[in-house]
């Protein structure tokens, strides 16, 4: 993390007083004991107390807090519910932790235009709960949806199990209100589609809190499909399961959800949930299709036939809503199920071209032996997003370090086969130092120049995403050889 600014730390008392003048009452937390809950997010291996916690309630307060911090050169870390799995909301010892939890109102529901205007502290699930009486829902469904906030979803461009068909957060937004580090308030988008100029909404989404603080979000809501059914298919190998996935998509079918688990994950889950998963298979696939009844029945029959042509060992179609939910209960409990069989586990999040799955799993088994650490895999099979869970015991000396090295090797492997470091959890602090495995110096510098356009002093969430911090002046410098570059040998007309 960036070296703490001693001058800022020395002024802590006056800074706290100035913040109290902006956000009155209990909105500023400076006592160590009360700041404790904010010291880490979902990536609990990293902990750091912030200098002070500020919980604003209004956009003008956010604006004034940021303007003050900009003028004073104070770093700011925004935070939603703190469910980030990549340390995106990890505090800084010399920074303000800006908690957005009090922005918890749904401002407007507009069924005619199929949208909702919400504050960033509203939880993902609360959006669906607010519109489901009219048969609508909000599509992105990260597994933390009961707790995670829409503001955090925007920052991380959160996905979920349904994003192959319904997209990630970025495909389900219409507009936002954003406060820049200078305190300037900018409105982007609205109730209409697409940007009239640069797609600023698109670049803010997934920027991990480095570009601005979102204070209002307009999300699209969708009509719930009439019905959904799922098929549970067991295979003797991940190759067979992979072939089945490819053939389903090859048949023109985009399932609502398509999840794969490997043997260790299946066993951990079945012991925990008793979902009736077959135990004598190497790979298990859950394929769900949704839509009108006629479509669902038609596609389920086709998927069953495809599964059998791919040497499925078992194939069960859900015959009731209860049974469909039971199929999913196992998958959704995969992380806690693994948590039951191991003192600790470390959840990875790479994406690979789907066809490389058998190769990646094989290499992962080899790495597992090398490091002496077991690994269980759950996989969003439709979009190639892989979540290897490395089993370890933090109380055994050196095991966390070994786990992190194993994890880094897995992510590098993902990049090697044409994939990426993170599919939905974000870079944060966790994968920051792996960025050069995927991006060149020029790639990373161009991204950081864009940050300078939003945050010229680099005060917003520094130390996340980028392995090396550069000053904006240095990034902006150009080496132009005026009059000394010969015209290149390119066809001219």
């Amino acid at each position, binding site marked *: 993390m960036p070296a703490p600014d001693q001058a800022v730390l020395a002024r802590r008392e006056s800074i706290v007083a100035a913040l109290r003048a902006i956000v009155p009452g209990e909105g500023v937390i400076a006592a160590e004991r009360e700041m404790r809950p904010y010291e880490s997010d979902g990536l609990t291996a990293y902990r750091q107390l912030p200098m002070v916690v500020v919980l604003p309630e209004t956009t003008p307060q956010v604006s004034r807090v940021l303007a003050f911090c900009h003028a004073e050169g104070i770093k700011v870390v925004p935070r939603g519910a703190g469910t980030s799995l990549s340390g995106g909301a990890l505090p800084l010892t010399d920074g303000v932790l800006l908690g957005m939890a009090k922005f918890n109102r749904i401002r407007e529901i507009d069924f005619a235009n199929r949208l909702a205007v919400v504050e960033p502290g509203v939880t993902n699930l609360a959006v669906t709960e607010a519109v489901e009486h009219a048969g609508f829902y909000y599509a992105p469904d990260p597994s933390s949806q009961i707790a995670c906030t829409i503001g955090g979803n925007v920052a991380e461009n959160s996905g979920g199990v349904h994003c192959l068909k319904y997209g990630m957060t970025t495909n389900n937004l219409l507009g936002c209100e954003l406060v820049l580090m200078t305190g300037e308030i900018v409105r982007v988008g*609205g109730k209409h589609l*697409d940007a009239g*100029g640069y797609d600023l909404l698109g670049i803010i989404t997934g920027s991990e809190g480095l570009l601005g603080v979102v204070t209002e979000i307009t999300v699209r809501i969708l009509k719930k499909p009439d019905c959904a059914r799922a098929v549970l298919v067991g295979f003797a190998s991940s190759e067979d399961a992979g072939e089945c996935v490819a053939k389903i998509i090859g048949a023109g079918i985009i399932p609502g959800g398509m999840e794969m688990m490997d043997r260790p994950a299946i066993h951990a889950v079945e012991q925990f949930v008793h979902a009736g998963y077959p135990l004598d298979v190497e790979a298990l696939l859950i394929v769900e299709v949704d839509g009108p009844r006629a479509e669902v029945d038609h596609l389920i029959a086709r998927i069953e036939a495809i599964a059998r042509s791919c040497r499925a060992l078992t194939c069960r179609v859900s015959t009731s809503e209860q049974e469909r939910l039971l199929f999913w209960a196992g998958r959704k409990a995969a992380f806690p199920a693994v948590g039951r069989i191991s003192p600790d586990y470390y959840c990875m999040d790479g994406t690979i071209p789907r066809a490389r799955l058998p190769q990646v799993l094989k290499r992962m088994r080899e790495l597992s032996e090398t490091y002496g650490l077991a690994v269980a895999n759950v996989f969003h099979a439709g*979009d190639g997003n892989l979540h290897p869970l490395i089993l370890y015991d933090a109380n055994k000396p050196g095991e966390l370090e070994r786990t992190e090295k194993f994890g880094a090797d897995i992510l590098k492997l993902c990049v090697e086969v044409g994939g990426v470091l993170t599919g939905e959890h974000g870079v944060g602090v966790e994968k920051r130092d792996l960025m050069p495995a995927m991006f060149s110096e020029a790639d990373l510098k161009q991204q950081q*120049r864009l940050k300078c356009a939003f945050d010229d002093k680099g005060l917003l969430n520094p130390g996340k995403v980028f392995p090396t911090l550069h000053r904006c002046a240095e990034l902006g410098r150009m080496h132009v050889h005026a009059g000394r*570059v010969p015209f290149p040998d390119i066809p001219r007309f």
Partner: protein
Amino acid sequence: MADTVQPRDAKDVEAAVQWALAEGKTAEIVGHGSKRAIGRPAQTDLTLDLSALTGVTLYEPEELVLSAKAGTPLAEIEALLAANGQQLAFEPMDYAGILGGVAGRGTIGGALAANVSGPRRIKAGAARDHFLGFYAVSGRGETFKSGGRVVKNVTGYDLCKLIAGSWGTLAAMTEVTIKVLPRPETEQTLLVRGLEPARAIEAMTSAMGSSCDVSGAAHLPAGVAVRVEAGVIAADAVTALRLEGFSPSVAERKRMLEALMKPFGELATLEAPGSRALWTAVRDVAPFAADRSARQDEQPLWRISTAPSRGAELAAMIASAAQAQMFYDWAGGLIWVALGACDDAGAALVRRAVAAAGGHATLIRAPASVRAAIDVFAPQNAAVAALTKRVKESFDPRGVLNPGRMWAGV
């Protein structure tokens, strides 16, 4: 006449931009030039013609992914996808009709740079939503990349979104990767006849709010509908709702939709061939094609995006003060407005109506002299304009690439 250079590969593009930078020259980036007449007229020293950067470099249908050099003809990509039962789900429109160009031209790079879409925008998104990764040369003369070749990726900023719709003002793309999707097995369109715009939008809202999974919702008022040569030549207004997918699904949804639309008016059905022709006409804005009269290219054409529920009201504001013809796509959220020839292309009126209803308007067609004099893209407030300028400078600090195409000084 600006000097035209035609790079043979990405290295050439980098060399050309570096040379322009060193010489203090500006460059217009073109593919086929099919959308060249959109935006403020370019006055650059150099034309950087990327149409020789062609070829699909990766296509894995089962992975739903395709990569191509930026100058690859869109038509070539669409044909390759069709041969594999797939398509570009964002349904890129062809501007040739309204701009008076040759149909079927345009490159994949151009489609992304202009963030094109079509009627399916309401269900499947625009080009931005299918843009997975790219290689490009910035205005600093540096090659950089963003994104990747997988559909789920949050590694670093999503620069694809920013490059989509930046009209070549930030970087010259050299190679792109996009998400492709299965082509629907069949389609049908349900027509409702004789509705006034406000009532038509109610009908479309009702359809979109149902679980019928409508993939196109357009309203052609009387007088505009008659211009659509798609087997629906009608004297009366037509509201069209498209259903796509597997046959049993389309059949069931059609029954549901008929029940829902019955109270609105007289119904008719277009089977797949007629449906395809109708939606191609809507997509390409056929009612306002430039070749219908020699003078029509003088007549301004606006593209307005607004909240569907405000569409009819916005259109009425414009129609009350000018001679205007219009039709609605995106369930009322996209309005194409053709105005009679006038000094400012009707900008003051259109901007006023859009400010009242919300959304943004782009002047798609107008004589170059008009496009040079007024804002073609949506005017921005001070904070957004300043941010836009800083974003431009972060990619292109010396203003080498398509300077002034979107706004003066950007």
